[in-house]
């Protein structure tokens, strides 16, 4: 789960990391009023995506009129697929230097990793060699003097130690400040914040669980979420209903291999396998879908239960588009019997053949 900048900065401020005074505004008038209170400021699009500056979503303004104009331009803008509905109006800082700091779960070393670079800002990714990496012992945590020995700066060590505490306390996958500004008058100020919480740990982060940025979802994806199904809408015309992330991705791969294009990713693995009825309704609600592949390979998931759900949904909805089944694994015999008897269809022995038929039918 990603937090938007303003939410992330609240977490920073609570941990004692300085952030600029700012106000979250949903319209240009509010932004203008905020600018009047704050003086010269930055108007920043609030979307859970990087590279906002490069996309034109951040503007520096010196007066109220410019603030209003900038907010008008940015609100409603689309950045990385997200519509901007709020801007953060923030008092501008007198910056001497832009730094980069982060703490993340490093999968390669299976340990927390602290990152620091003296050259932060928009082009941080172009300067990987400037990055100082400090691996952390997850049991011991990290001490300020240990960080200091690598970064040679008291203020930065202080911010990094606090950032590590945030990482540890919030089950963050990543907490990043870029840029961390060194001010002309001294001191450090977090000008941005990216905070990503491990979804698997949200159950023990009740204070943060409700503060996540809304993902950009299509209407169908929104419905999928309400149903507790992982549904991603894709631009193709072949509906996909499979169980397990691996099998679903593979079914999509085979569709592309034979020149087709999948209309969705939809996983009904794990406990969700009992939701086959709702899942099929969701796939069929996409008007672009011209044919459907149903690919079940059950172990934990019982193919007979999934097939029953699909058959029931099929009988209720009575869709007219062609559907192709491939069913293997736990409950296979019963699943095949159901499909034969109630839909009068013959499942394919091989997934490949079912996919080829679905691709041909969509043409």
């Amino acid at each position, binding site marked *: 789960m990603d937090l938007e900048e303003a939410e992330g900065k609240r977490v920073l401020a609570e941990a004692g990391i300085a952030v600029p005074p700012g106000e979250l505004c949903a319209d240009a008038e509010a932004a203008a009023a905020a600018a009047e209170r704050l003086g010269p400021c930055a108007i920043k699009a609030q979307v859970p995506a990087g590279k906002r500056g490069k996309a034109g979503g951040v503007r520096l303004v010196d007066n109220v009129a410019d603030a209003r104009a900038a907010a008008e331009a940015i609100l409603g803008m689309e950045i990385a697929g997200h519509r901007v509905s709020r801007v953060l109006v923030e008092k501008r800082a007198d910056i001497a230097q832009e730094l980069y700091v982060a703490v993340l*779960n490093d*999968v*390669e070393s*299976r*340990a*927390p990793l602290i990152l620091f670079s003296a050259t932060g800002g928009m082009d941080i990714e172009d300067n990987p060699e400037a990055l100082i990496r400090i691996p952390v*012992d*997850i*049991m011991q945590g990290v001490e300020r003097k240990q960080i200091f020995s690598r970064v040679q700066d008291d203020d930065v060590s202080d911010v990094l130690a606090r950032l590590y505490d945030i990482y*540890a306390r919030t*089950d963050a*996958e990543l907490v990043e400040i870029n840029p961390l500004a060194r001010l002309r008058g001294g001191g450090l100020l977090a000008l941005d914040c990216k905070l990503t919480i*491990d*979804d*698997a*740990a949200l*159950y*023990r982060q009740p204070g943060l669980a409700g503060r996540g940025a809304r993902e950009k979802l299509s209407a169908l994806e929104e419905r999928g979420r309400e149903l507790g199904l*992982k549904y*991603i809408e*894709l631009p193709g015309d072949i509906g996909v209903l*499979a*169980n*397990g*992330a*691996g*099998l*679903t*991705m*593979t079914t*999509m*791969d*085979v*569709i*592309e*291999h034979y020149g087709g294009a*999948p209309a969705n*990713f939809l*996983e009904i*693995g*794990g406990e969700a396998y009992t939701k086959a009825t709702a899942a099929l309704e969701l796939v069929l609600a996409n008007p672009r879908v011209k044919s459907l592949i149903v690919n079940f*390979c*059950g*172990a*934990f998931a019982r193919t007979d239960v999934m097939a029953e759900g699909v058959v029931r949904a099929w009988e209720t909805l009575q869709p007219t588009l062609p559907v192709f089944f491939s069913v*293997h*694994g*736990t409950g296979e015999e019963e699943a095949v019997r159901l499909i034969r008897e109630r839909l009068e269809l013959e499942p394919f022995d*091989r*997934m*490949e053949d079912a*996919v080829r038929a679905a691709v041909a039918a969509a043409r």
Partner: protein
Amino acid sequence: MSILIDRNTKVMTQGITGKTGQFHTRMCREYANGKSCFVAGVNPKKPGESYEGIPISATVKEAKERTGATASVIYVPPPFAAAAIDEAVEAGLDLVICITEGIPVRDMIRTRYRMQGKKTLLVGPNCPGVITPDEIKIGIMPGHIHKKGPIGVVSRSGTLTYEAVGQLAELGLGQSSCVGIGGDPVNGLKHIDVLRLFNDDAETEAVIMVGEIGGSDEETAARWVKRNMRKPVVGFIAGVTAPPGKRMGHAGAIISGGRGTAQEKLAVMEECGIRITRNPAEMGRLLKSVLK
């Protein structure tokens, strides 16, 4: 021969009183030699009770001392699953297979830290388990699709493992062992570890390796294969068509910064002498073509 488990392995179920633990323990007992393999269960609140004749102990240590079990399978819910692994490692088991999906990454980082210097091998979490056909299955895979033979299977995806096994069966090829290593970013055995075991297993003649987008385990394994593997390996990577940056259900399967894409993995594997296919329906046939 086989790897990791055989008909003589003695197994305990951690989380034996839950619905999932009970269902799959029953299924595993009904498979091949399962009746004599699954000998113990663990639940701290229900020591002295039993499930279908399997005695339940309060701790892994007690279950081990009482029954001689050296392996465990974990169905404990996510908030408690890492602690269940820790307990099994602390008790000095040889093998822990964790089926549980959705364990927080930080919990797994801690658990991997605690495992340093310990002898216990971990498979998973978020995996289907391990099967040595006609001998023993530990996990949630459908037993009946497997048969004994010379092919090793290692996979990050459960359903794709079954697909590979199904194709092998169609071609009359059985398996020595099949290992689902799971889709989580921080886990136990990696592709490379399982390939090492297959390399040293007299019964295994060739290996199917099924990867997934995200991380760099497949690349690492491929480089090892180039230098060390004495048996043919064929490979497939799921997620060629996955849109960049979209989470497709496995926390590990996230493409980031151009690394870990299916295309890159396939290229490295091919460079290292692994025969690859971009069509998963071809896994079985491709493997047959490389058999001596």
